[in-house]
């Protein structure tokens, strides 16, 4: 699937012109962020695991740089450079190379350099409308480039958050579950742990400390932890403060005393995550399943259905769209609506396009506050391989 001949190159260029012209006609300004990026931003936002998939190298002065693993983060940085002040609306599009380390023996659909064509919208407060437009525009571009059949899948992290919020449990347990979202086995294991034995073993914590935490008195607890460290000859060192350590201990002590998660609540979460249904029916299905659980969930289902309606209004054939509760895309920065486009000939392991909402990314890379953001990108080599039907 790599571009090896001048003809391949020309075909890919022609396809890129088609895609970009669709984006530009819809009001997206074409931008070209730099290929070489500061690695720290990516490692902070996506996590250190990215290092295993990204070409990271060191500049002459020791700064860590990388070949961009996608164009979303570079486009965010470009937006922030242009609009450092109050949030402004901006819509961009791009076509450029991205780089990923691939394991030995990776298939042709996973090249280590490939071109992404995509769009990003920032600062648009009409959230569902912006999401529907983004998804519809990506589909229009794919169609213009000749893609005829596809499987479409959408997910909604907003719904997942609403379900978690409705489930009665301490906030720190919700964080534990949120952390495992998208990791099927690990999520189920964590859910099981919370319903049976939510506390970690306290065997390693000195008895004197545990006693000190018995009282419902954070300030006093801190003093007692300090006294213990002092008497045990352990120096308080490093950047984690005494109050942070005490908070950690208090959480553990609270877990040890807490009633495990109610089995019915766990079943509700489990049941939600199992939902996979045609998008048009999903709203009704979810309402029957969970609608009475909380006003929060009901509102999230309304939002979901409004988006489905907007998508339909934008000309997306919703009979081809499946909603999957478990679907969250494998990048940490998505916060709400997500989508992917799969070509039957390539399968789900190699989506032709994907995207979604990522409202906390801009703040994470330096914006003074959260800015609404939604985007989508097309893997152009895969698209070309599909539309040329393996003739190349």
């Amino acid at each position: 699937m790599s571009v090896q001949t001048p003809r391949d190159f020309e075909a890919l260029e022609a396809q890129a012109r088609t895609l970009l012209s669709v984006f530009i006609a819809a009001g997206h300004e074409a931008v070209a962020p730099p290929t070489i990026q500061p690695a720290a931003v990516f490692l902070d936002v996506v996590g250190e695991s990215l290092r295993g998939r990204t070409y990271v190298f060191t500049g002459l002065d020791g700064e860590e740089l990388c070949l961009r693993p996608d164009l979303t983060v570079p486009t965010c940085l470009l937006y922030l450079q242009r609009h450092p002040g109050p949030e402004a609306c901006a819509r961009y599009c791009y076509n450029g190379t991205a780089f990923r380390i691939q394991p030995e023996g990776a298939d042709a659909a996973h090249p280590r350099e490939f071109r992404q064509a995509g769009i990003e919208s920032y600062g648009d407060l009409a959230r569902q409308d912006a999401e529907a437009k983004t998804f519809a525009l990506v589909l229009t571009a794919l169609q213009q480039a000749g893609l005829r059949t596809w499987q479409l899948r959408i997910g909604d992290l907003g719904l997942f958050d609403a379900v978690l919020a409705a489930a009665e449990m301490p906030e720190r347990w919700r964080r534990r579950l949120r952390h495992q979202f998208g990791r099927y086995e690990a999520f189920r294991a964590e859910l099981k742990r919370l319903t049976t034995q939510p506390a970690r073993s306290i065997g390693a914590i000195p008895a004197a400390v545990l006693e000190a935490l018995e009282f419902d008195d954070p300030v006093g607890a801190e003093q007692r932890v300090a006294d213990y460290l002092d008497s045990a000859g352990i120096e308080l060192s490093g950047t984690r403060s005494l109050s942070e350590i005490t908070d950690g201990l208090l959480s553990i002590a609270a877990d040890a005393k807490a009633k495990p998660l109610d089995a019915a609540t766990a079943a509700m979460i489990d049941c939600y995550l199992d939902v996979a249904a045609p998008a048009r029916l999903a709203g009704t299905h979810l309402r029957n399943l969970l609608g009475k659980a909380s006003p929060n969930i009901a509102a999230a289902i309304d939002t979901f259905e409004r988006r489905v309606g907007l998508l339909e209004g934008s000309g997306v054939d919703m009979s081809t769209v499946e909603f999957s509760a478990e679907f969250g895309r494998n990048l940490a920065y998505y916060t709400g609506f997500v989508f992917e486009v799969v070509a039957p000939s390539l399968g789900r392991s190699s989506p032709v396009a994907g995207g979604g909402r990522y409202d906390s990314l801009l703040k994470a890379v330096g914006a003074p506050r959260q800015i609404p953001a939604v985007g989508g990108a097309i893997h152009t080599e895969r698209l070309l391989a599909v539309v040329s039907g393996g003739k190349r």
Partner: protein
Amino acid sequence: MSAQLVFAVPSKGRLMEQTGDFLSQAGLELRKVGDARGYRGEIEGLGGIDVAYVSASQIVAHLNAGSAHIGVTGEDLVRENISNADRRVVFLKKLGFGYADVVVAVPQCWLDVDTVADLQAAAAAFRRTHGRSLRVATKYLNLTRRFFSANGLTDYRIVESLGATEGTPAAGTAELIVDITSTGATLKANGLKLLEDGVILRSQANLVASKVAAWPAETKKTRDAMLDRLGLAGQALF
């Protein structure tokens, strides 16, 4: 000349002595060729072998590039520096010296952190308070990344450290470390403790063969003669 078997051994320190002792026990004597300060040698009474004295980490690079056929080096260095080690080298024998565990260690005062799962909880809380990830000082970038990823820890940043790693938490340049320890004494002296499930790798010096080096018949014959003398004949090789 091209059929010579290149045998890479540590060029200095305890590892060099212990490698010499290990070979002596099998009746094989290392001898430098030419100047005693030189870096080339041979094995007495065993022809066809070029001994190359190389620094321990370079031995891994030679095995991975195929410029050495067999070498003596730590498993930690092999696992760190070769991404798919089992496809490129063969571990022939654990040598019983050069013991070093690659471990995760945190400040002793972290009474709330004894396991990797605790670390994940602490990392999440740390981000909420400080607006950034926990920093892990290490020279074992790949081992660290693979271990944390297999154990579900995602929110951390690696700070590359090439020396005095144990001092970084107290100095405030990292929150925790991944480093080698043999007795734990240095960790303790620096106010650090090992996590209960924080042993990433129990490493020791190994006799390692390169699968990617050129192995013409004559070199294989030399290899088999050498392994025979070391009591390793008949191993499934490549």
